[in-house]
């Protein structure tokens, strides 16, 4: 259900995807952020997904968007969370994965999704990834305190980032 090129230019679309497991506390921060975005950032041209994880079929929706914002959680000390404290919000502009991308699993990364979007569906959205560094990934719901603060910060960032309209290159 992609829009035509002309339709898109008139009405650039933004896709926000927040993902994570809300029953593993801080892991759910992406979903929480997406829910918040659904209440505060929804307007025509903005689509918001909340999901347990990234799945390949999102590639098609991504290909249809002009901009994509991914929101994820990361464990402090690992990956993006390395050398960072819980609650930090890391912002990255991301590009489709090249073939040397190491992260392969049921867990598809945003970069891989972008690569799929472009290789399979020919979409080339601008993309950015917000990662909130978390500390508590135990069973249960609700965010740890630093991550809750990180979420507030993230909301400001999201508001600022999504208000600026950008056109598809």
């Amino acid at each position, binding site marked *: 259900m992609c829009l035509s090129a002309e339709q898109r230019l008139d009405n650039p679309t933004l896709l926000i995807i927040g993902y994570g497991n809300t029953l593993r506390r801080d892991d759910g921060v992406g979903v929480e952020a997406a829910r918040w975005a659904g209440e505060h950032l929804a307007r025509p041209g903005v689509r918001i997904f909340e999901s347990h994880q990234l799945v390949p079929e999102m590639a098609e929706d991504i290909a249809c968007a002009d901009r994509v914002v991914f929101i994820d959680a990361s464990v402090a000390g690992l990956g993006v969370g390395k050398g960072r404290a819980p609650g930090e*919000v*890391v912002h*990255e502009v991301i590009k489709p994965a090249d073939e040397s991308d190491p992260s392969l699993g049921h867990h598809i990364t945003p970069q891989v999704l972008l690569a799929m979007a472009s290789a399979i569906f020919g979409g080339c959205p601008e993309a950015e990834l917000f990662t909130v560094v978390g500390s508590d990934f135990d069973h249960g719901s609700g965010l740890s305190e630093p991550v809750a603060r*990180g979420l507030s*910060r993230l909301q400001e960032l999201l508001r600022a980032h999504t208000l600026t309209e950008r056109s598809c290159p």
Partner: protein
Amino acid sequence: MTPEELTQMRDQTRQKKSDCKHCVNVCTAAGCLSLRSDQLKDAIDKAVHHAGRQDEVTVKSVGCMGLCSGGPLVSVESGDDEVMYHDVKPEDAGELVQSLDTEPVKRLQCPSDMPFFTQQTKIVLENSGKIDPELLEDYIANDGYAALTKALTEMSPEDVIKEVQTSGLRGRGGGGYPTGLKWSTVAKSPGQKKYVICNADEGDPGAFMDRSVLESDPHRVLEGMALAAYAVGADAGYIYVRAEYPLAIARLKRAIRQAERAGLLGAHIGGSTFRFMIELRLGAGAFVCGEETALIASVEGKRGQPRPRPPYPAQRGLWGCPTLINNVETFANIAPIVRNGGDWFASIGTEKAKGTKVFALAGKINNTGLIEVPMGISLREIVENIGGGVPDGKQFKAVQTGGPSGGCIPIDHLDMPVEYDTLKQLGSIMGSGGMIIMDETSNMVDVARYFMEFCMSESCGKCVPCRVGTWQMHELLTKIIAGEAAPKDLDLLKELCEVVQNTSLCGLGMTSPNPVLSTLRYFEHEYLERLNTNGHGATAEAASTEGA
């Protein structure tokens, strides 16, 4: 008992006392009693008998003499002379009795020129330590029930209220609401049935003013209540006293029985048409039951929880009837005011705060105990002179007033006069009169947490901000003390203080952040020192790594 009978009893008792050459008073209030002053009294009795002087020496149990740190206390009245002894043990009894006609026992004697004694002004405590609280005659001999008789025979209820208004007396339970105004509101509230309640649910940590008054001079409170009932048109009263005060309860019960037998309570009081009954209600020790609406709920047999005011108890109180609630110390001031006139009372204290205030000194101070001082006296006077300063050569740091709802006042403000408004300006409150002195070894965050823990466990659980907010604040304080808190935690703590203060249902909740707010006001550096600024929290700002 008619006025004449009363006068007769007064004179007889006075005569009997003056017939006696020496009167040995042994304090049997809870403090000294806990040091077995009852055994001491027995020992002195024996020594008197042994010396064969029982006709000229009276040995008496009396109430609190104030200097509780020196207990057991004994005073010996010989005519107009009075000698005071501290730390008296049963084995000292013989020596004490022998010394009656000679020199006082030097090693046990309290210096009579101690500021602790000379700087006090006693109204509420005028009989404490002087009369036997279990003897109605003793109270009557000290002009007891004269005020009630005077009111019933010479004054209209309006006159009584007017006298209280003239006195400028303000509630001694903590709020400082003008007593006369409260009385007149109840008097004016429409209703056939009205109640008078004495709040004796003293719950502040470190406070024991009310207990001491009840143990030392129970009739004074009954008389005050009877005067109030007469003034507002009530015929029934309750004393809500905490069950943890067994001695006070026993003495109150005895006093009520004595007063009823003597016709000073019950129907036709003093031969008039005025009737007033008093019942005791024992509280189970919930701090919040000191809040008047919660206290009323408890008296009614319900769960002790406050309800929003208005309507105030003066309009809708016990069983929905207009109800006057004052605390023990307030009632204890009434008889002297009616007896001596409101103007007399108003001449003591300051412009805005009349009369005296009883304080319980506790903590790092030499003379712990009970004192009564005129309003407007400086904190320095209390701490350094009356209290005798901080022990062990340590530095004074702060004085905590007003209990859990109060705050800490640092050394810079020691010269401020003790008044409702000045204490409020300093971020504390007058409260019911607990005063805890802290020295340099106390950390103020620990102090704040101690009081927060109290507020948290004493929250009734009805309203959300107090129930959960106190837990949250306690948690944050614990975190700060453990060195695990980030600067943002302190911000959150401040924010919670504001919310809890402004949104809680009753005074307990609204004032629960006070210990934090007042310590933050003067000792914020002690909080900051304990924050972890290089750990997790400090760097919890957004990092931006473009194009990673």
